């Protein structure tokens, strides 16, 4: 995934789209205060400098799906694993909830689901309508006591591959689809003809926290 910071306006549409797509709980003010709300995608604001010479950067952060993922290394139950195509996914059925991956993740991409979903502020009578179409997830339902994270909407990608669609143009994760500024691009980094490869070769890019050598696969095109 490539995120163009020049185009990003920090509207949080990606966060909202993610919550709607993956049925991530919306959270409450109390959870916000105690920092138990679940974010699969977050947008942080980083300021540099002092008024009046101040610069704010808005960085939208999904899971980075690192090649050398610290969370995969530390998970004792193989609940977090890297798929063949490089997506790091979390299997809720295997997760024992030891939270070691939250401690190990350098990007704060992981959240612990500490509450049963049926409670009031989580209550959503309308599930995403296409859930039935996409079929079975690798876990039966959302459950408390496990760690959750962004999956790059692998259910969309898997379905798209099954139907023979082109990943990156016809099938993209929800956050990419809903980005109004088209700041996010999704595609195969190994494919030299993909949009993401073209962007990365045409402009300078950065990755977050390179010093930890995570080899993450979310690239940012700086302003």
């Amino acid at each position, binding site marked *: 995934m490539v995120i163009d910071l020049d185009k990003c306006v920090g509207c949080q549409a990606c966060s909202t789209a993610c919550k709607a797509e993956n049925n991530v709980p919306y959270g409450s003010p109390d959870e916000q205060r105690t920092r138990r709300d679940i974010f699969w995608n977050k947008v942080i604001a980083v300021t540099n400098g002092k008024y009046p010479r101040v610069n704010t950067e808005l960085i939208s952060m999904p899971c980075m799906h690192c090649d050398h993922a610290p969370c995969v290394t530390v998970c004792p139950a193989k609940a977090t694993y890297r798929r063949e195509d490089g997506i790091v996914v979390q299997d809720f059925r295997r997760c024992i909830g030891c939270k070691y991956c939250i401690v190990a*993740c350098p990007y704060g991409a992981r959240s612990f689901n*500490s509450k049963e979903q049926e409670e009031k502020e989580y209550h959503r009578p309308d599930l995403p309508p296409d859930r039935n179409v996409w079929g079975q997830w690798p876990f039966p339902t959302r459950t408390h006591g496990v760690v959750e994270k962004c999956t790059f909407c692998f259910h969309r990608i898997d379905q798209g591959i099954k139907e023979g669609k082109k990943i990156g143009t016809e099938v993209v994760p929800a956050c990419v689809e809903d980005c109004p500024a088209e700041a996010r691009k999704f595609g195969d980094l190994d494919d030299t003809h993909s949009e993401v490869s073209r962007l990365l070769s045409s402009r300078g890019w950065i990755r977050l926290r390179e010093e930890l050598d995570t080899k993450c696969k979310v690239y940012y095109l700086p302003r």
Partner: protein
Amino acid sequence: MGLAFSKIDGKSREFYILLILFSIFTLIGFICFMVSYISGHHVLGSSSIIPWGMPITITIYLIGLSAGSLILSSLTYVFGKEEYRPIARLAVFLAIILIFGAMIGIALDLGRPEKSWRLFMFFVLNNMRSMFAINGILYGGYFLIGLVYLAFIFAEKTKFTKTMGIIAICWAALVHMGTGAIFGFIATRPIFFSPIKPFEFLSAAMASGLALLMIAVVATFKFTKRNLNKELIFSLSRLLRVLIIVLVVMVLIDKLTHLYSPHREPTIWLLTGPFSWIFWVLQVGFAYILPMLILFHPQYGKTLKGVMVAVFLVVIGIFGERFSLVIPGTAYPLPFYPGKIEGIWGMAGSFPITPIESFMSLGIFTLMGLLFLVGLKNLELLPVDESGQQTPELTKKT
């Protein structure tokens, strides 16, 4: 040999009062655990920012106590120091109880404790690159080795005991170094990340294990009206002085290296930030400075009361050391991007003390106290006679 061991009668009023009190608090702890399990971990103090709270702090603390206690039992059974024989059985038994409590602590912290069997499916369902899974082997093996060791001690098989003792101390050292490695190998958290962490944990384990053992010995001997050889406690307190100095050196090296780049800012935050009181008061004050002052004092260091105050401070202080590692270590905000991160993502986490978590933690301790009492009643742990010095009062048998 010439040293017989006996059970305690366990018929006195105090014994039953203590038994009932411990049972009640264990039950409360279990109820609190069920509440947290059924309704979710939002009743605990941990959050997505500070994922590890009180149960993990207590767990690593107990593992330390256990490893330290077991290593000290080897003074008699491996190195042949006969003067510590009266308390050696107690040390091994204490180690087994403490590791059991530690395992309970881990289970309480898991979001899905019913799946904790997955931790012990070595090489099949486990990712063996994870420090947690490696520690699963270590803890499980440690528990079994401790039981076998205790069995050999009860059977008075000196040769086997010695072999088992050597295995047990090596394994105990590994167990606690592995626990340190859980924290020390996490490159993401600057306060955790340190190659010296395993050794720091080991020395902390020895110091706190010895301190707890001294408390347990003095308390049980006093409670069962046995005569305690005071010289034994003083020689142990001299050992404790050395262990605390080793620990202080370890912590000093750790913090000094961290005061240099690139971990400078988190360390300064730890030493001056909102959690600094835990470090300075509990860890440095209670675990290092005050006990050292007492133990090196020409007067107080030579009285049983002074030594007991010192070891009590050590036991509390080492808990503070664990606390000041686990909580601030994860509370420090992650530097996602150079610059000041605004809003909630750049804020340090806070750790509220919640009643459910406190009672749950108390429950772990009382459960261990319960097991300790039951063990005293049913196993021959306490010495009967040591050249006439440690005769239990016959009048107590009614």
